[in-house]
């Protein structure tokens, strides 16, 4: 069982048993499929780690029609490129997972929302969708069943926030990508106000695996609380940056860095969970097994599965400035705490990087960070201070060294 198994064309995918899962699903009751997925223990791979089966159930149970399914391929978190690699290596499995999910929840139309920077991949996916339509895996009466479903590709236009599911829905609707106020969640009020299932592409690629091996069986992979394979984007100061696949909880951070060729230089620490919304931690985390629950237990988050390695040449204030610049640029501007908070954090950190940091700047930074965590409207705002706060926790001495 491997997510990253390469299938560059339909024949090679079919030769690996591709679309067997779809074929068998179409013979099952929809509720049975959702049951399988609930039993599998799969949680979303986009960062929030919400139980996938439960989310499907919410949409399936909603009596409103039509329903929609959306594949979130708007991979914008810095240092994260696993979705891209997955789409390059095996786009078929993602689409198969999407078709099965659509059948399970009763959706007739799906969208793949993909970031503009991956436009070439989007065009390739478009070709594949045409091919699948011709071969009867999409369109009317899929594989001779009564189920009809089609997919439209929507290309983003340069906005990190559109990776947030409700901003993404707004964007598909032709609006600016302002996140919506939740609740209601997309399962209740999604695209054009209709029940909508939004899943990350890696999550969707897991669906055919679960159907093929059965939910119970899938659950035995990885750890009990956190089963299944996971892709990790490893970059920064490692000798072989790339995407590495591990079963959940089976490898530690140290081990995955080893797989990526080991540290280039002397290890200082790393950023985990994302290159913006992630945590900056020190080497004490090297022994942490890579899974959502272990991460949570140690006060951090696995996020998108991103690990950026820092060696001793890295200046942490400069990294924090880079992250602050990112959030200032990508704040959608809808809510005040984030709109003004990201801007102010960047200006204070910039002052510190220029050697003019004072004690009261740190106090103000801390205060802004707390206000943003409490009062921001969406996860972008609440996660923007994480890097600063975690770095302060793990590298306090070093960071305060430059402050008067």
């Amino acid at each position, binding site marked *: 069982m491997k997510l990253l198994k390469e299938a560059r064309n339909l024949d090679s995918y079919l030769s690996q048993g591709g679309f067997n899962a779809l074929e068998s699903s179409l013979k099952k009751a929809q509720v049975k499929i959702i049951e399988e997925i609930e039993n599998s223990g799969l949680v979303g791979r986009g960062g929030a780690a919400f139980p996938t089966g439960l989310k499907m159930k919410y949409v399936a149970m909603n009596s409103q029609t039509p329903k929609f399914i959306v594949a979130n391929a708007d991979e914008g978190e810095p240092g994260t490129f696993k979705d891209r690699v997955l789409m390059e290596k095996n786009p078929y499995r993602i689409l198969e997972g999407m078709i099965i999910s659509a059948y399970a929840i009763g959706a007739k139309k799906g969208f793949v929302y993909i970031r503009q920077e991956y436009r070439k991949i989007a065009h390739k996916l478009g070709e594949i969708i045409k091919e699948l339509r011709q071969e009867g895996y999409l369109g009317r009466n899929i594989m001779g069943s009564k189920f009809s479903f089609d997919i439209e590709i929507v290309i983003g236009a340069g906005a990190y926030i559109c990776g947030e599911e409700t901003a993404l829905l707004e964007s598909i609707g032709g609006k600016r990508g302002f996140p919506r106020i939740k609740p209601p969640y997309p399962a209740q009020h999604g695209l054009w106000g209709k029940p909508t299932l939004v899943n990350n592409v890696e999550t969707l690629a897991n669906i055919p695996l679960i159907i093929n091996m059965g939910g119970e069986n899938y659950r035995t992979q990885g750890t009990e609380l956190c089963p299944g394979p996971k892709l990790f984007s490893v970059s920064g100061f490692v000798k072989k940056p790339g995407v590495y696949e591990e079963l959940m909880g089976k490898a530690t951070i140290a081990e995955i860095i080893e797989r990526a060729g080991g540290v280039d230089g002397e290890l200082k620490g790393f950023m985990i969970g994302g290159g913006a919304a992630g945590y900056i931690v020190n080497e004490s985390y090297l022994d942490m097994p890579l899974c959502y629950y272990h991460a949570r237990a140690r006060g951090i988050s696995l996020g998108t599965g991103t690990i950026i390695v820092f060696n001793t040449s890295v200046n942490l204030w400069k990294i924090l400035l880079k992250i602050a610049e990112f959030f200032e*640029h990508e704040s959608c501007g809808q809510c005040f705490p984030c709109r003004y908070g990201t801007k*102010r954090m960047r200006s204070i950190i910039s002052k510190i990087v220029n050697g003019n940091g004072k004690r009261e700047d740190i106090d103000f930074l801390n205060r802004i960070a707390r206000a943003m*965590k409490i009062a921001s409207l969406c996860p972008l705002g609440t996660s923007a201070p994480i890097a600063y706060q975690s770095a302060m926790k793990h590298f306090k001495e070093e960071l305060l060294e430059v402050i008067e």
Partner: protein
Amino acid sequence: MTRIFLNGKEINFEGRKTILQVAKEHGIEIPTLCTLLDNFPIGSCGLCVVKISQGNRVFYSRACTTYASQDMVVETHTPEIEEARRTILELLAEEHKARGELRKLMERYGIEPKTHEFRDSWRDNPFIAFDPSVCISCFRCVQACSLLKENHVLVREGRGGSIRIVAGVDQSLIDAGCDFCGACIDACPTGALMDKSRKSQEGSELRKITTVCPYCGVGCLIDYFVKDNRIVYAKGNLKGVNLGDVCIKGRFGWEFVHSDKRLKKPLIKKEGKFRGVSWEEALNYVASKFKEIRDKYGPDSIAGLSSAKCTNEENYLFQKFMRTVIGTNNVDHCARLCHASTVAGLFKVFGSGAMTNSIEDLMSAELFFIIGSNTTHAHPVIGTMIKRAVKKGARLIVADPRDIELAKYADVYLQHRPGSDVALLNGMMHVILKYGLEDKKFIENRTEGIELLKEVVEKYTPEVVEKITGVSRDNIIRAAILYATHRSAIIYAMGITQHTTGTANVASLANLALLTGNVGKEGTGVNSLRGQNNVQGAGDMGALPNMLPGYASLNSPIAEYMERIWNGRISRKPGLTAVEMIQKAGESIRAMYIMGENPAISDPNQKEVIEKLKNLEFLVVQDIFMSETAELADVVLPAASSLEKEGTFTNTERRVQLLHKVIEPVEDSKPDWWIIQELARRMGAEWNYSSPKDIFEEIRLVVPQYKGITYARLEKSGIQWPCPSEEHPGTKILHQDKFPTPNGLARFFPYEYQPPAEVPDDEYPFILTTGRTYEHFHTGTLTRKIEGLNILMPEAFVEIHPDDARKMGIKDGDCVIVESRRGAIRVKAKLVKIKRGVVFIPFHFAESAANILTNDALDPEAKIPELKVAAVRLKLC
């Protein structure tokens, strides 16, 4: 019942409410800057964040967007939350100059706000000022513009810290199609958006006075803010029928009051020149001339035009003056030109001639059938309500030869030929009967004469009607089925009434409503939108040649009762109607008393009207401006405007509302009731009214519909007649249980289709139809005194279909001569998707007066002229 714990206190409440709402109701003030609509929270400011514990979850959430649910434990002012609020305000203070609500909030949190002088960066519009350095991009104005008003002009540009508010595609408000309702100004929490007129008065103490808008019949309540007897700015009152909404005229159309063109003292014309005189001299002169003419030619040689712009009290006195002091029934008012056919047509079918339902309850209709009403321009506040209802799911049928704004919102749009309404409506009834969609129970229990109707509409098959109206048979069928299968409200205006078949048009609408049982219930009815703020009241008060106050007939016992109250005799001979009196001017009519009307512009066949008025021996005009009619007068009496006096107006939905004096009368002008009384006294009447309230008390005695209404009750809120006793709450919906006919049943009154009096031919191949624009009002006497409105709508135009224009080589903006059998005018061409073969000209503009062209042929029953159909030809200047 839901229970929550708010700051340690147990609170129980009913229904679905946000934490913000519950807290407010229990006296806990949670700060917020962005909340505009409770049901569509924006959630931008983040200040209302609260701490919530529920089950084993503890989280922070916005009070404005979070619904309070069972057993929530909410804390609104923890130290962490208060710190976050202060931090957010501090960040705002670094970026923006603070004013308004924001400033108050900063002061409360001990933050020093930056002060500064207002700098207007929107110089290219006449009314709305904007200072971007004060704008905090909370998006309340955007929400007001889109969700409240359905205008979609103010939008957001960019993102993050550089996000800002712009109009349209970053254009001026005018280019972006702003309709200057001012909702954005009211929504703004920082004063970044402001009325331009208010800029110079910043910081000064203003007095607020609420009164009724001086324009159309919707009867919006408006708050005027005044300093030193001058209005500084105005906004909609939340408690009025308008619920805080206003249109451009309500918001910015008060400037005429302070115009230096106001009449300042009485004028007497000698040797063709006006000379200012004292009131004493003017009143004595008029009284003696009226007496002289009456004695010489008899009382019926004098005629009076009362005014839909004057109060009920003044209309009442005016008709009483004409009837008992002069001794004639020659009294009428401009309703003759607008809704005389409504009164006649609805009377025939329902037994009462007024709008059946209320503005408020109309919004519960499942379907609107709008015919002959450009609602968003002529009755904009109701137009907005309809747009909002349609956005919420109501269906809409629009029938109009012009591609009006509401047509864009319509499920079915019927672009029928002007004057083909009866055929269209008969066609719809034909379809309804054919498909068996009539309300059989309603017809059985509440109506009579269905057989006659069936007989008449039998031949109006969709095929036949398609030929007459130019509307496809499919659309006729669709409209009929939609109308019959919903709780449907008909809304109409002058497009229905101003025809030689006006009475037939109105009666046909009433037939349609009866046929489907769409009368006497919420969200239904036949709803005439009245054009002037007191046109309903002027009729109620008996400013009519054939009816006494309360629509009493001249020959009824009530007339005798009135003679006793009035201590005078009433002639039993019906008087002349408005158009007739002018047609007879210089012949049987020797003198006229015209109060607040401008027939020289408003009446059809203008050239002849002016000739006739010139032939009068004596003409008295009482107005606030030197109108085109006043120019022809022998004596001009300066009146106070409605913002300068007390009294009552009755709006389109029969709601009697109290006026409050906003400013003192300008210069030497006087309220009309005072002038009429002074004239009456000088002609021997023993009148002794000390205030409009005195007059109203007398009205209550003679107008049964007003019996239960008192000034004291009106101080609290307007009351809809009929209101038979002081305990009666007023009547929102007419005809709920029975119709005011002798047997309580409504009567179907079918009409055959008759073509208009003048149809296009080879010589005059186009149909001309006329009407109003959004920016101006009626003959422009008021609105064309307002500079800003003239900037937005400077001149007349003729709407032509591009295909018709192309054939004549006319391009958009070209000067065009429009000519009818009665005259010709020059106007600018405007190419729009009006029905082919039809052209439209607004009638506000004296210099290119549409009424030079129109036909004065009359409806035989209501005597309303056919202002909506005239044959014309066009050529380039």
